[in-house]
């Protein structure tokens, strides 16, 4: 899988309405998506079966061709970042059939619950330590998160 091929895939994504393209070729795989956080546009991994499901921290290595695929990706908004205080599974609601605690655009008060991170059957509620507007939710429901991983960006109220 060469760089030209990946470049063509990125162009294809830009030209179409597709949200995500994933190509598996032998032992290598590339996935290009629109809605991932900026630092993780590619998951170009080879021969590691669990790579696709690896926590996002695994993507800390810089992607090989950031400029192209990112041309249309939104920048992270400026604001107050709430990070994960622990390793665990990120949940946006108190139970699978409950409404999410917050959505992008929600106005939250300081102390309001934003999400739950579960590890070893301890359900840790994460609360907003500032009030304001939720600009961005950076982790997906049910996804594993690492210590210090950004979860929310909040525009603090003045």
């Amino acid at each position, binding site marked *: 899988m060469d760089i030209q091929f990946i470049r063509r895939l990125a162009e294809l994504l830009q030209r179409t309405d597709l949200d995500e393209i994933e190509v598996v070729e032998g032992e290598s795989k590339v996935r290009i998506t629109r809605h991932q956080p900026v630092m993780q546009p590619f998951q170009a991994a080879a021969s590691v079966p669990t790579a696709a*499901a690896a926590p996002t921290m695994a993507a800390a290595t810089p992607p090989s061709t950031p400029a192209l695929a990112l041309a249309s990706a939104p920048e992270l908004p400026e604001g107050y970042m709430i990070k994960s205080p622990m390793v665990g599974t990120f949940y946006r609601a108190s139970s699978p059939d409950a409404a999410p605690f917050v959505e992008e655009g929600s106005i939250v008060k300081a102390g309001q619950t934003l999400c739950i991170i579960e590890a070893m059957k301890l359900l840790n509620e994460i609360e907003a330590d500032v009030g304001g507007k939720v600009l961005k939710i950076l982790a997906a429901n*049910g996804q594993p998160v690492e210590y210090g991983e950004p979860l929310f960006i909040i525009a603090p109220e003045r």
Partner: protein
Amino acid sequence: MAISAPEQGPSADLLALLATLADGLPRPPCALPLAAASLEKTLAEAERWGLPLQREEGGQLRLHYPYPPLRAAAVAQGAGWDTADVVVLPWCDSSNERLRHGPQGPRALLCEGQWAGRGRRGRHWSSPFGRHLYLSLSWPVAALPEQGSAALVAALSVHRVLHSLGIPGLGVKWPNDLWVNGRKLAGILVEAIPQMGQPRLIIGLGLNVHADPALPHTAISLHDAGVRTDRNTLAGSILRQWESDLRRYGEEGFTAFLPRWQEADCLAGRWVQVSAPDGIREGRAQGVDAHGRLILADESGLHAIAMGEASLRPAAAP
């Protein structure tokens, strides 16, 4: 037990009726807080919820307790606390939820039954009336991120109390279930609540105590394990043990509990499958590390696992 939950909560009429009849004494319909027209409907609803509201000869109604009722004073005495520290409710959504949203004050809350008992991730915990123990403790902590293995410690406390009753085949299953020969005796749910600088843990226990024809075969009660006990005494002993263990955990951390975990661990040495959000992993369980993470050994080495659901895979063992 993971079964489907009823869709919505009970009616206000049913809750009012239960509150009046909670003492277990018979009352004539005219002494009830209901219009005669809505009584039949409310009794039918009680039956759907599995609540033992019975009509006696002469038309009197009463709430039938299949075993001696929970008593706050008896539980508090067993725990070595003031009676005001313990609240007993006849029926509620879940003991964790009531303790969390109720007024500040009580340190423990018990109920005879729950209409929305919860297991992990919103799974319904079957909670029939008057037979088992649904017990929650509110425990203030200094800081939350350091409480990672609190659920394991809470399970070890329950293990110690039950072990003293002499139950063959009793063990803890990582991270915090109690098993008797592979069947579930009790489950624990711990919620860590930051509460704007006054963090606390809410520790909830569901323990199968008396005979219960509705228990699935994957579960077991103390009665099935040959133990006859009183729920008030049991709850008092568990609260006392929780208090002592959680205090020690706060001072010394989880490493102080490693020897007890090794004694109680019923997965050690067995072939285990863990399903986690990032995939399924299999290996031979090798106990837990100093953070309470499950250690699995496979051909690629040792792995410390913090997330996921562990199950035994005896058939697949190599």
